[in-house]
């Protein structure tokens, strides 16, 4: 069954397709050298700005490639590199744009908060280590085979373990890093275990190849296929912090420097979603007839995971008093929402799962980064990140408080914000697929979440703080807050253009399903 694997050399054209990733890698190497060679008296913030420039350059390259691929308003064919182990397609590119934009905002946030954070001693690493993590995330979104995917995942994970522990003088940070290494290791182990089963029954690591071989393999090894898929789902379940695999998230987010928590909540989570989306859709959609039952079971498992995340996350957050832990649990609830389009499968009347997912992810990106940015500004002023330190913000920083209201409304799924439409599209999709039980759970969890999201509002507007001093927001943090607030409102007022654009560029056939 095993085919001989041909050696495929990397050509110059391939290099051009990989330009965004290569640019980031080049900037990364350059910055390591620069950090070594630069005299001590030059501030390491320069490295932060250069990191930002590198990300912007890479973003430009991705956009240019996408424009080039989708000329004339038709979704272009996917470009397969290195024997289909790396794919440049609209699915990947759309998500890469999000990852790059998200990391750019995170870098800016880090620039704003690091200046007087004594706990972070390795300032240069703080910025340039974001780059390999980002490359890993981009690889996960683009991978066409399990090995590439795993390498991307490890690149992302290993660098983020270091980033989490960068606050060397804080014991919480060390604890968080340790916890993240352990759970991350378990997650990787589960993934590898599941992947090895898939490889074992199909004889290939190529996603398209797995899809081709799976129907035949299922007749003999149905139980093994279940084991393989369930372990993969559990592995990613840890990475996206879906209940019951979410317990690490509050601890890690709390201990990590706030910009790094943001990175984990948005980019690392998004990358895991991208990989999960691709594996599930490439392999399961082609199952027909008696095998369709297997696919339905796996999809059901995803939906159960989604429901558990929504309910467990919302319940756990009710009694939370720490702002960062609260946002971590809010991330768990949102993971639940984003798993819904992945787990709904396709039907004749409903197949826009991807656009639902992406719209919510975009909204999630802006509202989460924005909320973390506000937390970072507040905890910088008060020295801790308890919910209590938001008290009296109406007097201490009225405009920042107003921006926080926007994020809170969006997270709670209330109009007029991106979070509202994101949730509405997911709800409509679930109702379209006749998954009414899921509609009820989504809506129920959002009502529960009103209570704790409005906890921010209660503190900011209804309680008075211990000191009346104005909160000084660093310029960079301010930019992040207002970009995110503007984007959140814009997504809530004009949901049309983005959805139309996704519809034009994305095609299930050419971008996700790898058969034929």
């Amino acid at each position, binding site marked *: 069954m095993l085919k001989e694997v041909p050696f495929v050399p990397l050509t110059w054209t391939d290099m051009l397709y990989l330009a965004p990733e290569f640019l980031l890698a080049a900037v990364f190497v350059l910055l390591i050298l620069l950090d070594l060679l630069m005299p001590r008296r030059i501030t390491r913030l320069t490295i932060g700005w250069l990191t930002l420039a590198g990300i912007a350059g890479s973003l430009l390259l991705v956009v240019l490639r996408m424009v080039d691929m989708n000329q004339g308003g038709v979704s272009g064919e996917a470009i397969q590199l290195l024997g289909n182990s790396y794919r440049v397609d609209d699915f990947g590119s759309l998500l890469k744009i999000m990852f790059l934009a998200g990391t750019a905002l995170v870098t800016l946030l880090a620039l704003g908060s690091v200046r007087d954070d004594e706990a972070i001693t390795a300032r240069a690493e703080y910025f340039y280590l974001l780059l390999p993590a980002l490359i890993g995330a981009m690889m996960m979104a683009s991978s066409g085979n399990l090995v590439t995917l795993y390498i991307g995942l490890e690149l992302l994970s290993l660098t983020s373990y270091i980033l989490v522990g960068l606050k060397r003088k804080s014991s919480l940070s060390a604890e968080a890093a340790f916890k993240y290494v352990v759970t991350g290791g378990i997650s990787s182990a589960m993934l590898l275990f599941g992947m090895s089963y898939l490889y074992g029954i199909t004889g290939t690591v190529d996603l398209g190849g797995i899809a081709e071989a799976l129907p035949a393999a299922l007749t003999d090894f149905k139980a093994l296929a279940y084991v393989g898929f369930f372990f993969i789902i559990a592995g990613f379940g840890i990475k996206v912090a879906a209940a019951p695999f979410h317990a690490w998230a509050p601890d890690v987010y709390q201990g990590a420097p706030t910009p790094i928590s943001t990175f984990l909540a948005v980019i690392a989570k998004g990358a895991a979603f991208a990989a999960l989306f691709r594996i599930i859709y490439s392999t399961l959609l082609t199952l027909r007839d008696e095998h369709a039952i297997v696919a339905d079971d796996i999809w059901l498992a995803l939906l159960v995971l989604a429901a558990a995340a929504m309910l467990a996350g919302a319940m756990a957050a009710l009694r939370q008093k720490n702002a960062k832990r609260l946002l971590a649990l809010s991330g768990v609830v949102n993971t639940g929402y984003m798993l819904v389009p992945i787990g709904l499968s*396709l*039907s*004749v*009347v*409903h*197949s*826009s*799962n*991807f*656009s639902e997912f992406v719209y919510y992810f975009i909204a999630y990106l802006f509202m989460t980064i924005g909320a973390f940015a506000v937390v970072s500004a507040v905890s910088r002023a008060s020295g801790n990140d308890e919910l209590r330190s938001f008290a009296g913000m*109406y007097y201490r920083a009225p405009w920042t408080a107003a921006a926080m209201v926007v994020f809170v*409304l969006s997270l709670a799924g*209330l*109009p*007029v914000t991106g979070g*509202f439409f994101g949730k*509405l*599209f997911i*709800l*409509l999709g679930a*109702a*379209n697929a*006749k998954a*009414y039980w899921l*509609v*009820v759970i989504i*809506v*129920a969890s*959002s*009502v529960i979440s*009103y*209570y704790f999201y*409005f906890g921010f*509002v*209660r503190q900011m*507007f*209804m309680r008075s703080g211990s000191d009346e001093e104005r909160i000084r927001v660093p310029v960079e943090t301010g930019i992040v807050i207002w970009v995110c607030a503007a984007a959140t409102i814009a997504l809530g007022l*004009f*949901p*049309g253009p983005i*959805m*139309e654009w996704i*519809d034009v560029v*994305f*095609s*299930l*056939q050419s971008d996700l399903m790898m058969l034929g």
Partner: protein
Amino acid sequence: MSILNDIPILSFILFSPLLGIVVLLALPHNRSNWMKKTVVVATLIPLVLSFWLYSEYDKQQDGSVFDEQQSWADIPLNKETQAAVPSEFKFTLQYELGVDGLSLPLLLLTTIVAAMASLAVIQVKKRWKAFFIWFLLLEIGILGVFLARDLFLFFILFEITLIAMYFLIGIWGYFNRERAANQFLIYNGIGSAIMLIAFVILVNTAGFRMDQIGDQVSFLYSGSYSNIFHNLADSGAWVNLAPEQMGTVNPFLMTHTMQWTLFILLLVAFGIKLPIFPFHTWMLKVHTEAPTAIVMVHSGLLLKMGAYGLLRFGLLLFPEQARAFAIPLAALGVINLLYGALLALRQQEFKLVLAYSSISHMGIVLLGLAAMNEIGLQGAVFQLVSHGLVSALLFLVVGSIYERTGTTDLRELGGLARSMPFVSGVLLTAGLASLGLPGLSGFIGEFLSLLGLFESQRWLSVAAAVGIILTAVYMLRAVLKITFGLQREDYTALKDARLIEAIPMIVLLAFIVLLGCFPSVLTDTTQLGIDGLLDQLLATRAGG
């Protein structure tokens, strides 16, 4: 007239308070007098416009000329799984506004009460700017609820009132404001969540439509009310076709069970807002904790949104279920009426007397709706408008009394007629209007509702009549204690109403008397809306 038709008058009404918000944002923090003037002007604009609309509407006998429809967003849906690929497959969000005989009186009520409440904001003592902005946003939300003709637009505006109220209660309320705000948020959050479930299912079934222009076939989901209304009523629409008639499966079919489920969901969703008996606890807190201007709007307008939603979405979309459910609905009405009245009798806190009285009066609205005939519906709408005016006036008076005496406890108040003759007179008249004295507006609403109910369910209307007597008892007990009764010494020096307080009292009182003496001012307009509704109800009766 033709020139005026081109003006999107409904949008002007809806967004004119926004002007006030823009001006407020530009004003410096310490100019509280300018801010107050801005708010009053910002609420007067929609008031004038809606008066003009009301008068024009009567002449034209048909509100559809005012309807506005704009596409807000077209969300394309993936169509790769479809066998016969349509040229378009999308979900459309419409910005659709309209008025008819049912919503127009409520729209006018909104602008009147909001304008009068804006005069009562002088009692706000802190953070004026934010208060006024939320107040105007609240007005936009309420106006929008009565104007919106798209399910999602309705939902969005409904939620805006929720958010605005949360801030208004939680920041500017009395001592227990935070708890009141939280309870408000959770109860109403559950209500609107249930509404959202119902709406999402409705759009996915009855909201589906196929348009064919030449060989351009487009499939679309739409939350447009008229679209859903017609689809549900049309036995040939996809939503009503059995799978056999469609070939194999019909993903858009709404089964009988689903219709019932949706009807019950809508009943609960709007029942919380109304509030119907077991769901009423949140509104007691709001009534006691919210500042005067807000409780005027809450009691006068927000409760009406529940009744309006029930009528517009529950009864009009599912007339068959509504008809079958008429007796339980009337029973709920009687329970509300008696429960509210009995508890009002036992309260020592005047605000709670009024809160329970609101529950009781909303029971009458339910009775009118449950009558399922022309007179009953007339009565229900009339009662909504009347109760809006009366309760706004009562809470305005309560606010004035509290400002002077610092209490609203019946045991401590007494003999105010001597020191505050004007306020006491207004309170007495409002109390009489509330208990249904002929010649004032409350009487007509109660009379028509019960008359309608008497035609269809005789015995329940007898039980309801008991409630009316109780109303007179508790209302007179409270009002007489405050106005007459023993006067405390420190109350002798109280000042009577200032001009700025007297104006809204006089205006509201004038409307109450006007409606009481000339009910046809209102009923003629309502009639136009009800004719259509009755056609619908009769058609289902004939059909099955």
